[in-house]
C-alpha cells in the first residue's frame, strides 16, 4: 500500500546531521554524552561478545593444539614448561643437528638411560629427518645404534669418554648434574626447534591443553546459546502475538500452560528433557529452548495486550486490515526492541543452563570440549590441580557477563521509560 504522505521526509534535526558527518569512532565517543555508563556498558560488552564470537569461529587463534589430543604431560601447572628431551654432546664435537649424521656411512652410537622414553623419541625424530632428506632427493640416511645405560651418570660418562657419539635425556635431570661434566654441553631439544611446547593455562588429567579446550568450548557455548534462544524466540513470539491479539479460549489455555512451565524450576525441566533425549548437542538445545519459550510468550503477549488498544491499531482495523497483517505490521514492529533485549539476556541464561546440564553429566557426550564438562572433571582433581576448575569457570562468567551487560545496557538506552535509576 503506497502512502503519498510518507514521501515527505521530515527535516532532520541538527544533531542527526552532525552525526551523519562524523566517523563511527567519533559517534561512539559522542554517544556517552547522552547515555553515560550504559553506553560504556554496551561498548565494552559488545567488544567482549565480538571477541567470543571471533574465538568461536576461529578457535585456532588461541588454541595451539587439538582439544581432544594428549599433547603434553598430565597435570602441568599453568605457565610451566614441560620437561623436554635434549641432546647432550661433547664440546669438541662438530655435530650440529641430526641431519649432519646422515653423511656418515655407519650406525651412530647414541646413549639413552634404560627405561626412559628417550630411545623411542630419538628414533622417531631420526625417522622424521630421514623422511625430509628423502623428500629433498638425498640418498643419505641417519642410522642410529641405541646404547642403553643403567643410570644417567653412566650415560654422561659414556658421552665424555667417546663411547657414544651423543646422549639423549630429560632436560631437567641433565641440567641438574651437568656441572660435574665440564666437557659436555646441551645442544638443544631433540626436535631441533628452539623452545618447546608451551601450555599457558596448564594441562589436564589426560595431558590435554586447557587453553585449547577453552577456546573450542566457546564454540559449543555460543552454538547452544544462540540456537536455543532463536528456537524459543521463533516459537514464543508468534504464540504470544496470537494469544495477546485474539484473546479468548486460545489465550487462556496457552497462558495456563506457559505459566505452569514458567513457574516450575527450569533447570529441573531441562534435566528431565535432556535425560530423555540422551547426550547430544541438538538435544541440549531442544531442552533449553523449551525452557525459554514462556519468557518470550509472556513479554510479547503483555506488550500486544497494551499496544492493541493503540490508536494506530484502531485506525488499521477501520481501514479493513486483516488480523494477520495487523499483527505483522502494526504490532510486531513495536515488540521488536524488547524481544532483542530479552534475546541478548536469554543467550546468557541459555549458556549458563547448558553449562549446568553438562556439569551434571546430562548434556553433551563426555568427550566434548565443553566448559561444563571440564568443570565436572576438574572437581575430581580439586585437591591436586586448581587450574582445572578455575579457568573454565572464568570463561563461563565472562561470556555470561558480556551478554547480560549488552542486554541491560541496550534496555536502558532503548527503553528510557524502564530507566529506574
Amino acid at each position, binding site marked *: 500500500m503506497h502512502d503519498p504522505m510518507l514521501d515527505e521526509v521530515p527535516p532532520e534535526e541538527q544533531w542527526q546531521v552532525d552525526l551523519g558527518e562524523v566517523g563511527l569512532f567519533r559517534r561512539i565517543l559522542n554517544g556517552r554524552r547522552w547515555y553515560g555508563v550504559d553506553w560504556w556498558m554496551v561498548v565494552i560488552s559488545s567488544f567482549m561478545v565480538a571477541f567470543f564470537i571471533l574465538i568461536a569461529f576461529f578457535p585456532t587463534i588461541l588454541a595451539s593444539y587439538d582439544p581432544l589430543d594428549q599433547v603434553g604431560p598430565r597435570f602441568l601447572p599453568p605457565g610451566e614448561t614441560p620437561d623436554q628431551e635434549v641432546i647432550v654432546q661433547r664440546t669438541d664435537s662438530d655435530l650440529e643437528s641430526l641431519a649432519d649424521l646422515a653423511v656418515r656411512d655407519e650406525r651412530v652410537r647414541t646413549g639413552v638411560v634404560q627405561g626412559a622414553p628417550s630411545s623411542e623419541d630419538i628414533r622417531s625424530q631420526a625417522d622424521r629427518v630421514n623422511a625430509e632428506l628423502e623428500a629433498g632427493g638425498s640418498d643419505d640416511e641417519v642410522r642410529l645404534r641405541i646404547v642403553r645405560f643403567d643410570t644417567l651418570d653412566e650415560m654422561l660418562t659414556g658421552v665424555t669418554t667417546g663411547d657414544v657419539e651423543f646422549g639423549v635425556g630429560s632436560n631437567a635431570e641433565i641440567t641438574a648434574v651437568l656441572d660435574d661434566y665440564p666437557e659436555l654441553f646441551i645442544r638443544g631439544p631433540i626436535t631441533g626447534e628452539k623452545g618447546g611446547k608451551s601450555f599457558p593455562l596448564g594441562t589436564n588429567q589426560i595431558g590435554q591443553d586447557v587453553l585449547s579446550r577453552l577456546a573450542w568450548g566457546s564454540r559449543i557455548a555460543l552454538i547452544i546459546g544462540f540456537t536455543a534462544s532463536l528456537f524459543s524466540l521463533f516459537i514464543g513470539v508468534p504464540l504470544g502475538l496470537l494469544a495477546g491479539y485474539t484473546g479468548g479460549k486460545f489465550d487462556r489455555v496457552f497462558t*495456563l*500452560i506457559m*505459566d*505452569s512451565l514458567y*513457574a*516450575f*524450576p*527450569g*533447570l*529441573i525441566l531441562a*534435566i*528431565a*528433557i535432556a*535425560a*530423555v533425549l*540422551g547426550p547430544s548437542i541438538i538435544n541440549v538445545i531442544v531442552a533449553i529452548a523449551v525452557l525459554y519459550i514462556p519468557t518470550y510468550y509472556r513479554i510479547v503477549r503483555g506488550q500486544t495486550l497494551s499496544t492493541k488498544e493503540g490508536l494506530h491499531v484502531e485506525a488499521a482495523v477501520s481501514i479493513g486490515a486483516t488480523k494477520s497483517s495487523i499483527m505483522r505490521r502494526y504490532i510486531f514492529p513495536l515488540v521488536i526492541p524488547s524481544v532483542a533485549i530479552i534475546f541478548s539476556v536469554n543467550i*546468557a541464561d541459555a549458556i*549458563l543452563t547448558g*553449562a*549446568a546440564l553438562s*556439569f*551434571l*553429566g*546430562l548434556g553433551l557426550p563426555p568427550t566434548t570440549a565443553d566448559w561444563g564438562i571440564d*568443570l565436572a572433571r*576438574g*572437581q575430581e582433581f*580439586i*585437591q591436586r590441580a*586448581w587450574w582445572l*576448575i*578455575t579457568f*573454565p*569457570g572464568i570463561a*563461563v*562468567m*565472562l561470556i*555470561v*557477563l558480556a551478554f*547480560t*551487560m549488552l542486554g541491560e545496557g541496550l534496555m536502558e538506552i532503548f527503553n528510557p521509560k524502564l530507566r*529506574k*535509576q
Partner: protein
Amino acid sequence: MHPLTLTFLIFGIPALIGLIYVYARGSSGLRSYTTTRILLTIPMILILATVVFFVMRILPGDPIDSTLGPKGTAEIKERFAEQHGLNDPIIIQYGRFVGNVFTLNFGNSLIQSQRPIVDELGERLPATLEMIIPATILALGLGIFLGTKAGVKRKSATDYSARIFSVMIYAMPIFWLGLLFQLIFGVWLGWTPIAGRIDPTIPLDRITNFLVIDSIITGNWEALRSVLAHLILPTLTLGLVLSGVFLRLTRINVIETNQEDYVAAARARGISQGTITRRYSLQNALIPVVTLIGLQVAILVAGAVLTETVFAWPGMGRYLIQRILSRDFTAVQSVIVFFALFVAFISLTVDILYSLLDPRVRY
C-alpha cells in the same frame, strides 16, 4: 514418627494456620482470589505431571535393566515387570500415577530394594530444607542490607561495589562458585569440610533428619559442630547467588521511594537520614522484594540441585539426578510433582502475604 510427617508439622502447620487466618479475616475479594489460585494449581501440577510421565516413558534406558543388571534372566525380568505393573497398558499406568499424585502416596521405588518413595523423601527433604532455609535468610539479609546501603548513597563507592557484586554474582555459575569455595576454604585453607552433611565417624540418632535439630535434641555437641561446619559452604554458595537479585531490587526501590514526596517532607521536618531509611523508605521499598521471594523459589530449587551435586549433599536434588540416571520412573515423577507442589505452595503463600503487607492491593 515418620520424618516427612515431622517436617510437615514443623513447617507446614504454622504456614497453614497463617493461610487459614488470612483467608478468614481477608476481604471477600482476597478469599475468591485465594480459591482461584488453589484451583488453578491443580491443572498446573497435572500438566507438569503428565508431561513428566510421558517423557519418562519414552526414555531410551529401561529401569528393569538398570536395576537387575546384566545378570537378570528373562524370567526374572518378566516377574519384576509384572510386580511393578510395567507390563500394563501405558494409559492404566498413567491412571495409577495420577491416583497416586492425588493421594500423595507416591508408590515404591523401582530400584534399591523397592522402598516406599515417601520414606526416601523423608530422608532427603529435611537435608534440602536444612540447606535452603539458612541460604534464603542469608540472601535476604545480605541483599536488603547491601541494597539499602547502595540505594541511600547513590553513586558512592558502596553503590558501585554493590552493583558490581550483583552483576558478577548473576553471571557466576552457581556450581563454579561452590567449586571455588571448596578450593579456597576446603583445600587451600583447610577450614571446612567439602562434602557431605556430617562426619560419618560421629554417631548421631536420626529423629527428624534435620541434623541440626537432631544433634541439639540429643545433646550431641560434637555432632552439632560437625553438622554446622558442613553447612557453611553450601549455604554460603546458595545464599550469595540468591542475594544478588534481592540486592538489585532493594536498591532500585529504595532509590525510587527516596524520591517520593513524603520522604522529602520527612527530610524537611529534620528527621535523621537513618530514621527516614528505616521507617519511611525501606518499609515501602521492601514490598516488591516480598513478591520476589515467591518468584525466586524456582531459582532456589534449581540452585539447590546444583549446590547439592557439588557438595555431595544427600538432598532432593541429588536424589533426582541419581534416579534419572538409573531410570527410576516412580521416584523421578514423585520428586518433580513434589517440587511443583512446593513451588506452588510458596508462591501462593507469598502472594497472600503481599496483600497483608500492602493494603492498596485488592484482589
